[in-house]
């Protein structure tokens, strides 16, 4: 997931350079900043969030894709026009980003629901295990007096 996000951030920020007439050759500073940021995020993802093999592969692929489009922003426009028939690369990114975020929200929501369910079970078990018993002397029998 994160790798896609990286990809989108990388492209979305690199792309407007075309619109400003820089002709797909944005200043080197922003490119370095984006690539370093993407690299650090990927490393962070590797180190902190112990993830599955497939996830790691996706991060690597995502990072590489990001480097490619950051260096050559015109590529997204080419893909947009030739593959999807959309005018600008920026628009393609916007559409993909919207879909991606909606997916992300749904995933997080279902995760939250699952956590809630687990928390409920946990709290319930603890409550029952630590039940406070009434004083034996006064304990009602269950029969009406």
């Amino acid at each position, binding site marked *: 997931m994160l790798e896609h996000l990286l990809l989108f951030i990388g492209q979305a920020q690199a792309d407007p350079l075309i619109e400003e007439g820089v002709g797909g050759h944005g200043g080197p500073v922003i490119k370095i900043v984006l690539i370093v940021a993407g690299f650090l995020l990927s490393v962070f993802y590797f180190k902190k969030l112990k993830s599955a093999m497939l996830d790691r592969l996706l991060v690597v692929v995502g990072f590489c894709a990001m480097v490619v489009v950051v260096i050559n922003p015109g590529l997204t426009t080419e893909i947009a026009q030739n593959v999807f028939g959309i005018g600008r690369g920026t628009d393609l990114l916007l559409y993909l980003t919207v879909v991606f975020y909606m997916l992300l929200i749904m995933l997080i929501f279902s995760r939250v629901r699952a956590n809630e369910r687990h928390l409920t079970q*946990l709290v319930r078990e603890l*409550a029952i*295990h630590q039940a406070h018993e009434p004083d034996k002397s006064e304990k009602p029998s*269950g029969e009406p*007096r």
Partner: protein
Amino acid sequence: VEIGGEFTRAVRAAKGGLLLRKPGSTVSNSKASNCWIIVPAYNEHSLIGKVLGELVELGRQIVVVDDGSTDSTWLEASKHPVHILRHAVNLGQGAALQTGIFFALREGAEYLITFDSDGQHSPGDIAALLGPLTAGEVQVTLGTRFGGQMRNDQTPRMRRLVLRVAAWAARKRTGLRITDTHNGLRGFTAEAARQIEITHNGMAHASEILEIIAHKEFTYKEVDVSIEYSPYSLKKGQKLSNSFNILWDQFFGKVR
């Protein structure tokens, strides 16, 4: 306190998605009419003492589920001869009811009555809810404030309107013949209670219980009960969001 082992077991059970098994044998005081009263409570320190004092007079087993109260609810309840379960965090009334039902069944309850802790209900009504259950007439009894003879004129107009519309929607949705969807006084036989699993932790359990009754085709009956509107309960019940939620749940049920 030594909760280490229990805690690990709880985690394991939570992971496995299964609920708890009693370690030892069950309490075997199952007499002819072993009835448990379940009282969910959240921050009710001012009234729960009075409510429990009256309930204890009935001589039934009582289990209070303190739903993570931040006030002295637990302390007030512990002054009475009742079982108290405490949720470590606030989960909502639906979750509290489910915990109480689960505990009572585990302790061998044959009949279960749910009773709100805010002083709205009258302990005298419990016998009327229990009657049809012990007679084997129905599996579920539901308290109603809008029954024929006992039409309760205390109900504030706006609240009555909301509850009426909610009941109408619930009738349409579930096909049950009911007049009051949000009455905390309910009775269940153990057989029915065992099949009830409230998954909505919050207030939506009212519509969820109706759905379960309709889906499992339990036999049920509405019983006239009184509701006492104190300034305290009115303040709690009359929030606009409350009315909105009541209507939403009864129109759309589990769709959320």
